[in-house]
C-alpha cells in the first residue's frame, strides 16, 4: 500500500496539472503566435496590438472602478451585517443565514437580468412606476451604467465576504474588547483600536476575494454594461473572441495573460492573509457569554434595513422573473397586466428545441461533471490530507490554483487547446473545462471530510483485526459520505448555471442553459428568458435544499441526536 502512494500522488499531479496548467500554457503560447489554428512563428505583435489599443485605457479605468467599488460595497455590507448578527440584539437573526446562502440559489446571470428588468431606462418596472407616480419625463435610474454594475456586483459578492468575516467575528475573544473598556476606552474607540485591527486580516481577505471575483465576473458586465457600452476587461475580452465580431484569439490571449497574473497574485495574497488571521487566534478561554450590544432605538430601523436588503436580494429577483414570465410583454403590474397573464412563454420555452437541448446538456454536464469531479476530488483530497510529502504539497498548490482563474480566461486558454483536437465544439470539451475550473469546489468539502477521519480511527479498526478493505468499507467511507454528498451537490449547482467558461467554449449543438438565457437576453425575449431562468433557479434551489437536508440527515445519523 505504501509503495503505491507515490505513484498515486504523481498520477494525480499529472491529471490535475493537465487540467489547471493546460489552459494557462496554451494561453501563454497562443499569446505569442499568429492565429488560433496554426501557432506559426513566434511573434510579439499580439501583445503590441492588445496593449496599444486605444480602448484599453477606458476599459481599464472602468474595470478599476467596477472592481474596487463593488468590492468595497460587498466588504462594507458584510462587515456591518456580521457585526449586527454576532454582536448585537438585532431580532430575527436567521434572516442572516438566508442572506448568506442566497447566491447559491440565484445565478448571477439571472440576478443581473432581474435588476435590468427593474431599473432599465426604457421600460424598467421600477422606473416606470416612479415616472408614473411623480410625473417624471425621464427614468430616474439607469442600471445600464457603471454604478448599476457596482451595485449589483457588490450585492452578489456580499455573501462571500460575509462568510469570511462572520466566522472571524464569531470566534473573536470578547475579552479583547472588554479589556480595552476596562482600561478606559469607550465603545467607538474600542471598535477602532481593537476590534477592527484584530479583524483586519479577515476583512482584507474578504476584500481581496471580492476583487478576484468581480475581476472575473462576466454576467454582470455582460447584462448591465454592454447595453450602455460600459466595457470592463471581461466583456472586452469576450468581444475579441465572440463570433460575429472578428475574433482574434491571439490578442485575447495576450491581454488575458495580465488578467490571469493579477488574479493569481491576488489569490496568493489572499492565502497569505488567511494564514495570518489564523495566527491571531489567541488562547481560548472558557467562552464567557459575550456581552450583547444593545441597539436600543436603532434596533428597529436597522432591522428594517436588513429586511429590505433580504427583500432586494432574495424576493425581488425571483418575483420579477416570475412576473415577467407570465405577462405578454413588459408592463407595470396592474389589473390589466394580471388579466393578461398566461403560460404562453412557458409553453414556448418547453416547445423550443434549442431550450430543451440546452436544458438537457446542462443536466448532463451537471450530473456527469459533478460525478467525475467528485471522484477526482476525493483522490486529490485524500493525498493532500493524508499523505504529507513534498509531492502532495505540490498537488495542493496545483489544485487550488484554478480558484484564481477568471472563467473567460480559462475558456480562451482551453479554446486554444480544444481547437487542435477533435473535442472542439463537443460537450466533452465543456465537461473537461468545467471540472478544471471548479475543482477547488469539490476538493474543499472533501478535504475537510478527510481531516475528520483521524488516523486513530483507521488504526483502531486495524488493531481490532479488520483488513484494509474492511476498514475502508466500515470506517472511512461512512465518515466521508457527508463530504462526498456536499461536494457533489456544490459542483452540480455550479455546473447547472455555468456561464463564463461556456460562453467561450459553447458552439451550436453544445449550448447550455446560461448561454441560451443570454441569447434570449440579446434578442430581448424577456418572457421566455424569465421562464427558462425560473427553471434554472428551481434546479439550483432544489439541489441546495437537497444538500442541506442530506447534511442534516447525516448529522443526526452520526451524532445520534
Amino acid at each position: 500500500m505504501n509503495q503505491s502512494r507515490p505513484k498515486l500522488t504523481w498520477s494525480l499531479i499529472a491529471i490535475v496539472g493537465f487540467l489547471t496548467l493546460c489552459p494557462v500554457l496554451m494561453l501563454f503560447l497562443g499569446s505569442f503566435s499568429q492565429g488560433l489554428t496554426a501557432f506559426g512563428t513566434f511573434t510579439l505583435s499580439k501583445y503590441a496590438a492588445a496593449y496599444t489599443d486605444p480602448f484599453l485605457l477606458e476599459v481599464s479605468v472602468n474595470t478599476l472602478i467596477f472592481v474596487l467599488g463593488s468590492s468595497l460595497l460587498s466588504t462594507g455590507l458584510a462587515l456591518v451585517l456580521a457585526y449586527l448578527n454576532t454582536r448585537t440584539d438585532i431580532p430575527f437573526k436567521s434572516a442572516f443565514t438566508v442572506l448568506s446562502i442566497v447566491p447559491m440559489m440565484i445565478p448571477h446571470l439571472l440576478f443581473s437580468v432581474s435588476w435590468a428588468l427593474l431599473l432599465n431606462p426604457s421600460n424598467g418596472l421600477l422606473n416606470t412606476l416612479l415616472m408614473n407616480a411623480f410625473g417624471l419625463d425621464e427614468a430616474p435610474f439607469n442600471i445600464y451604467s457603471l454604478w448599476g454594475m457596482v451595485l449589483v456586483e457588490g450585492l452578489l459578492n456580499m455573501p462571500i465576504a460575509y462568510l469570511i468575516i462572520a466566522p472571524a467575528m464569531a470566534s473573536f475573544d470578547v475579552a479583547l474588547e472588554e479589556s480595552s473598556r476596562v482600561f478606559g476606552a469607550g465603545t467607538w474607540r474600542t471598535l477602532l483600536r481593537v476590534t477592527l485591527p484584530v479583524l483586519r486580516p479577515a476583512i482584507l481577505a474578504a476584500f481581496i476575494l471580492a476583487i478576484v471575483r468581480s475581476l472575473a465576473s462576466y454576467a454582470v458586465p455582460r447584462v448591465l454594461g454592454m447595453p450602455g457600452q460600459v466595457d470592463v476587461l471581461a466583456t472586452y475580452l469576450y468581444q475579441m473572441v465572440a463570433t460575429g465580431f472578428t475574433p482574434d484569439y491571439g490578442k485575447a490571449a495576450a491581454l488575458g495573460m495580465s488578467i490571469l497574473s493579477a488574479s493569481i497574485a491576488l489569490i496568493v495574497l489572499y492565502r497569505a492573509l488567511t494564514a495570518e488571521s489564523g495566527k491571531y487566534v489567541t488562547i481560548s478561554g472558557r467562552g464567557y457569554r459575550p456581552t450583547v450590544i444593545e441597539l436600543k432605538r436603532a434596533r428597529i430601523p436597522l432591522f428594517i434595513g436588513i429586511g429590505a436588503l433580504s427583500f432586494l436580494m432574495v424576493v425581488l429577483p425571483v418575483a420579477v422573473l416570475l412576473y415577467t414570465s407570465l405577462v405578454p410583454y413588459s408592463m407595470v403590474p396592474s389589473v390589466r397586466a394580471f388579466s393578461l397573464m398566461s403560460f404562453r412563454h412557458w409553453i414556448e420555452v418547453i416547445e423550443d428545441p434549442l431550450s430543451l437541448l440546452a436544458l438537457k446538456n446542462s443536466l448532463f454536464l451537471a450530473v456527469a461533471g459533478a460525478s467525475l469531479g467528485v471522484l477526482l476530488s476525493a483522490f486529490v483530497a485524500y493525498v493532500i490530507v493524508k499523505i504529507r510529502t513534498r509531492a502532495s504539497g505540490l498537488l495542493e498548490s496545483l489544485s487550488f490554483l484554478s480558484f484564481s482563474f477568471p472563467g473567460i480566461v480559462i475558456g480562451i486558454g482551453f479554446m486554444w487547446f480544444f481547437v487542435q483536437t477533435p473535442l472542439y465544439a463537443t460537450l466533452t470539451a465543456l465537461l473537461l473545462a468545467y471540472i478544471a475550473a471548479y475543482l477547488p469546489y469539490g476538493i474543499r468539502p472533501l478535504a475537510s471530510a478527510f481531516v475528520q477521519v483521524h488516523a486513530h480511527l483507521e488504526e483502531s479498526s486495524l488493531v481490532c483485526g479488520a483488513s484494509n478493505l474492511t476498514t475502508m468499507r466500515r470506517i472511512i467511507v461512512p465518515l466521508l459520505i457527508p463530504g462526498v454528498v456536499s461536494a457533489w451537490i456544490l459542483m452540480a449547482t455550479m455546473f447547472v448555471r455555468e456561464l463564463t467558461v461556456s460562453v467561450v467554449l459553447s458552439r451550436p449543438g453544445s449550448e447550455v442553459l446560461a448561454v441560451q438565457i443570454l441569447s434570449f437576453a440579446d434578442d430581448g425575449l424577456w418572457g421566455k428568458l424569465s421562464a427558462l431562468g425560473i427553471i434554472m433557479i428551481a434546479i439550483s434551489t432544489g439541489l441546495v435544499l437537497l444538500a442541506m437536508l442530506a447534511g442534516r440527515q447525516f448529522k443526526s445519523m452520526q451524532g445520534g441526536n
Partner: protein
Amino acid sequence: MEIRIQGLTKHYVSEGKTVKALDSVDLTIPANTIFTLLGPSGCGKTTLLRCIVGLETPDDGEISIGGEVVWSKARGIAVPTEKRGLGMVFQTYAIWPHMSVFDNVAYPLQIRGERKDDIKRKVAQTLRFVQLEGVENRSATKLSGGQQQRVALARALVAEPKVILFDEPLSNLDAKLREETRKELRSFMGTLGITAVYVTHDRVEALALSDSIAVMQAGRIVEIGSPQKIYFDADHRYVADFIGRANLIAARVVGQDGELTLIESGLGPIACQQRPLPPGSEATLCIRPEFIRVGADRAGTGRNVISGDIESLEFIGEVYEARIRVGNERLLARIDPDTPVKEGDAVSFSLNPAHCLLVSA
C-alpha cells in the same frame, strides 16, 4: 479603596429557566487587601467580578468603589466600565494580537492622553517590575503563556489603579508555572499594597494568595474569613468540604466540657473544638486527613482515642493514603511512608480536639 456591595442581584434566563447568578449579595471588600472570591463554576463569582468592573449589568442593588457609587438601581446610577478607572487581568489575558508588548502595556496610558515620554518611562518601569524587560517590541502573542500573563499584569498595573481585578488569571498555565506565578503574584501585590479582587475555583491558589476569602455557592456568599479561618475553623459544612479534603461525619451534640464541645458520632464520643451548640443539636464533624495520626504514639489528653482497621493503603509519593474503617464509618488518613503498616492491620489513633471541627449539619 474599599468596595461596598449591597443587595446585588443578577438573573440569567437559560433554556427557559431563570437562574440566580447573584442572590442579594452584601459584601464589603476592605482597602489594601487581596480578597478572593472562591467557589465552583456557576457559583456567581465571575458574575460578581464582572458586575464590579461594569461588564455585566446587575438587576438590583448597589456597588460603590472608594465611596463613589458606580452602580445603583434605586438611584439610577450606571458608571460605564471605561469610567471606573480599574485594572483587570483576564482569564485569557486578552492580549491584543495586533500590538507589540509595548503598545499593549501603554494602551491605558495612551487612552488617558498622557505625554509620550511619560508613557515610555512608566511602561519601562512596569515591565521591569514584572521582570519582563527587553521584549517591548516583540509581538505580544508570540510570548510564552507565563510571559503573556505578565504582560496582562503589567497592563493592569501601569496606570496605577486603586483596584485590580483578577479573573482566574492562572488557570491557563501549566501546574509548575502556575505555582511559580502564584508566588510572584503574591510578592508583587505585597509590594504594591493595593486592593485586589481575585476570582478562582482553585482552593490552593485562594489559600496561598489571599488576605481574605469569600466562599460562594449558588449566587450567595456562604462564609468570609482569613485562609486559616476558612480552612481550620469554617462554620459551614459546604465551606469545610470545598476548601480541602475532609472526613465529614454526622454528629449530635451531647454537652460542653470547659473549652470543648462533646459529641456522639459514628466514631464514638468525640471531644471537639468549642461551638455554642445546645445538647441534642445536629452537626457535622469535620476531620482533615492530615490530622489523623496513625502510628505516631503521641501522649495526648487520652481523649479521642479511636481504633479501626486499615481497609486500603495507597502510595501516592510523599505519603500513603489510607482508608480506615471505624465501625460503619470510613476515614481518609495520610500516613507517613516510613510507618510500618499494611492493609488489614488494626490501628489506633488519637484526634486532637483542636482539629475536630464542628460545622453545620
